[in-house]
């Protein structure tokens, strides 16, 4: 039963293009196993990425990138050996295997279990009609030109429009020394719109909105879809023209639904990644079973949502993705694991072993991380705040996993006075302590939203696409960094 053509297509792709049949894969793994190792795997990647960008009214440039390569990894206890090369040949593979196995001192007679499998996955979360990188460039150019005209027509204060389309098509194949064979074909599309608006006295502000996911490019061509995106970036730029400096100090904060879920990603998610907890360098180390959030707070990481930017059929070690509950009703209950850290901690992999490309070692990473909806009416939550700020959208964030301190920059916010939304604010940064911040949640809205599909997470120099989500929530007593008293 072929339930995922993607995986099978990738298996035949690497076999036909590079001669990587079951026998070659097994032979390379045998070479890796000439020393005593616990596990070895091969990761093949062939990725095409293209982009088209518009500025000053014209599509000035197009680009296309082809990235291919293979990584050979061995694991011995806590040690990992890794060698990668952009030359995908059987000879090169055995050379890489010899490099990777050098972390082990003991020779071995063991052979890999013969690799076999069709690459079929239990699910296909992102079937597409056409690989997004095969869509004619002219369609992408026309979309950007239409966006430019529409954005300028929205308001005379719009002075600059920059828009871009980025599409990616990734084929991967993973063979393990336990005989496992996994494969996947992963489409990814993204549309970005940034406008610069100019107001009184030459004041300039930027508005940005992007969207994307693992779906057909044609979805982005729907007029209502891209217009909503443009409307959003124009709205934010114009709004910022009237924004006043954000106050500094500790105050009650209401986070809007969707993208503000980046709070969970920074404050909670990274600290629950298996590697930091195995090494006991996370602020959440040894806290499973403890209360780390208010009652009613449930946070999950879910790589199985159809078409989402952070979703995967299988992770980059071939483990099927799943929904992992991190915090249930306020109690810490799970970590995000790759194979190595799961084995060393006596736990199960959770399908979170991810890597940027064949040139990187996998590590535990998030997929789509969000808080489940509560029962409160969002309007009622806003009305409950005497004095504070309402943060609707964010730029980026960062966390110090060991101390737990996190920060993120607000890109759209308003003051709240006596339960009413007031003037827009600019230049706000929220800062807090990961293990503490969710104990400050006092209200949870019924309006869970996921973000628009634009998240990218960086860890140890590796970037991977992720998603976040949040219902409207109220946080009591958060430090807000601004310039005003």
């Amino acid at each position, binding site marked *: 039963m072929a339930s995922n053509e993607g995986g099978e297509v990738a298996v035949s792709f690497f076999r036909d293009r590079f001669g990587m049949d079951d026998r070659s894969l097994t032979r390379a793994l045998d070479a890796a196993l000439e020393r005593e190792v616990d596990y070895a795997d091969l990761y093949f990647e062939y990725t095409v990425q293209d982009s*088209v960008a518009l*500025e000053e009214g*014209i*599509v000035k*440039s*197009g*680009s*296309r*990138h*082809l*990235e*291919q*390569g293979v990584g050979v990894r061995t694991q011995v206890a*806590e*040690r*990992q*050996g*890794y*060698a*990668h*090369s*952009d030359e995908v040949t059987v000879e090169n593979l055995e050379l890489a295997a010899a490099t990777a196995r*050098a*972390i082990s001192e003991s020779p071995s007679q063991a052979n890999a279990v013969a690799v076999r499998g069709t690459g079929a996955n239990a699910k296909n979360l992102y079937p597409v009609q056409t690989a997004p990188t095969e869509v004619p*460039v002219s369609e992408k*150019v026309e979309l950007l030109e239409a966006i430019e005209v529409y954005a300028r027509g929205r308001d005379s204060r719009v002075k*600059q429009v920059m828009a871009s389309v980025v599409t990616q098509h990734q084929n991967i194949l993973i063979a393990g020394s336990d005989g496992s064979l996994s494969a996947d074909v992963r489409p990814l599309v993204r549309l970005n719109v940034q406008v*610069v608006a100019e107001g009184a006295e030459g*004041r*300039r*502000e*930027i508005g940005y909105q992007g969207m994307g996911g693992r779906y057909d490019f044609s979805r982005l061509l729907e007029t209502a879809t891209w217009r909503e995106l443009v409307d959003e970036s124009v709205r934010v730029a114009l709004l910022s023209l009237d924004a006043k400096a954000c106050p*500094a100090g*500790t105050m009650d904060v209401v986070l809007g639904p969707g993208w503000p879920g980046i709070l969970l990603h920074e404050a909670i998610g990274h600290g629950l990644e298996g590697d930091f907890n195995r*090494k006991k*360098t996370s*602020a959440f180390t040894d806290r499973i079973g403890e209360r780390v959030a208010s009652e009613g707070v449930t946070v999950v990481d879910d790589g199985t949502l159809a078409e989402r930017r952070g979703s995967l059929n299988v992770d980059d070690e071939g483990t099927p993705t799943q929904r992992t509950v991190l915090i249930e009703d306020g109690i810490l209950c799970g970590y995000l694991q790759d194979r190595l850290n799961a084995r060393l901690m006596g736990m199960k992999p959770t399908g979170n072993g991810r890597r940027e490309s064949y040139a990187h*070692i996998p590590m535990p990473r998030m997929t789509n991380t969000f808080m489940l909806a509560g029962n409160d009416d969002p309007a009622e939550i806003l009305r409950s705040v005497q004095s504070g700020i309402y943060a609707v959208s964010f*730029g980026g*964030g*960062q966390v*110090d996993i*060991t*101390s737990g*301190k*996190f*920060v*993120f*920059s607000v890109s759209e916010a308003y003051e709240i006075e006596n339960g009413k939304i007031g003037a827009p604010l*600019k*230049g706000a*940064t929220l*800062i*807090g302590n990961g293990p503490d911040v969710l104990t400050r949640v006092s209200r949870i809205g019924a309006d869970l939203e996921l973000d628009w599909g634009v998240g990218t997470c960086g860890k140890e120099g590796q970037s991977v696409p992720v998603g976040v989500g949040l219902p409207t929530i109220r946080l009591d007593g958060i*430090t*807000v*960094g*601004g*310039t005003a*008293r």
Partner: protein
Amino acid sequence: MSVGTSSATVERAIERARRAGATAVDAVLIESDSVEARVRAAEIDFVTQARERVLGIRALVAGEHGARSASTSTSDLSPEAVDKMAEETVALARATAADPSAGLPDEAFASEIPDLALFDPADRDVDVEMRIQDARAAEAAARGADPRIDNSEGSQIGSSFSHVAYGNSAGFFGEYGTAAHSLLSEPVAKSGAGLQRDYWYTVARRLSDLESPESVGRQAAERVLRRLGAKRIATCEAPVIFDPVTAPSLLGHLISCVNGYSVYRQTSYLAGKIGESIAASSMTVIDDGTRPGGLGSKPFDGEGLQTRRTVVVDRGRLSSYLLDSYSARKLGMQSTGNATRGAGSPPSAGSTNLWLEPGRQSLDEIIASTQRGLLVTELIGMGFNPVTGDYSRGAAGLWIEGGEVVGPVEELTIAGNLAEMLMEIDAIGSDILWRGSIASPSVRISKMMIAGE
């Protein structure tokens, strides 16, 4: 990585793109060998070795209203793949719009390729095991410094050797080799329930220029220990000192605002401000791509132009932007030889080695002359807006009372506007730290808003 092969691949790409109809072409081939390893406690955490090669091609098709252009890259360097990519580049260029400013530089290409001491051939013979010994020594020095350090994220080494070959259809071809070696140590310390981490690293073109492993481990230990027991402080306005580790981030923000692309797009608050006073008169900022052994040095830039020394801020006045030929043409200026070029992207503008000229005071003297304020030793978050200069970031550091450090503080934000912050610099240290391509001594800003409890 023989020289002949690099030039043959670059020339093949240029030739094929021309044959497919390009009126101008340039191509860059970047080849690198690298090794990285991390040691944690007494155990190796990982060892990785890699060989990578990537070819970037840019094709321009000139017409009545300007040139159409596209850029591609491929890590498949078989002749068939190179030919196909060259042809696809031209086809993609034809799908874009004509841009009157697009093209190869009008300026004269580099006439010589100086030896800037960007690698030491002897370092190629150094065994990975020897470098791993360095990581072990740094790890031992960090972990042995104090009983409160009983854990770490590990100590990591890296060595990479690269070869860059660039050519264009105007007849320029140049190539050079570079290397980068590094050693980082990141200990974790504990006191009561509080965990802290910090790090120290050294990076250089030549192994012999690295700090000793013991020094790296010891400095990492000192930095993490002084963070233990960090408190929060009440929201206030006070002077803020950036140490030589955090001060380069301010120069990074300045770079994003003097980058030619931000300037012509008017997405920089410094657009149109050449000749104006934009910083305290004590501030002089220089970019110099020819600094021997510099981590940002290159004998020619990403378009084949000679790199040079450019004064960006001269005693407080903005004297130059950082420009490649495209942004220069858009602004009616000349390229400053600051084109950057990765294989995967068209040329853009960027800094080479950029630094703030040191002053005379030591950091201790600056602290002693601060009645009450913050010494920032770590910054997190991305709260800088180049269009407006608005600045707000998370910070940790040491609190100063009566000219003396009284203890560590954390979970605060510092906020201001870069335009005002640069004008309000009232002390510049003598302690410039070269550890990357952007370097700065300590800097004090007379007042910023600090948000805490």
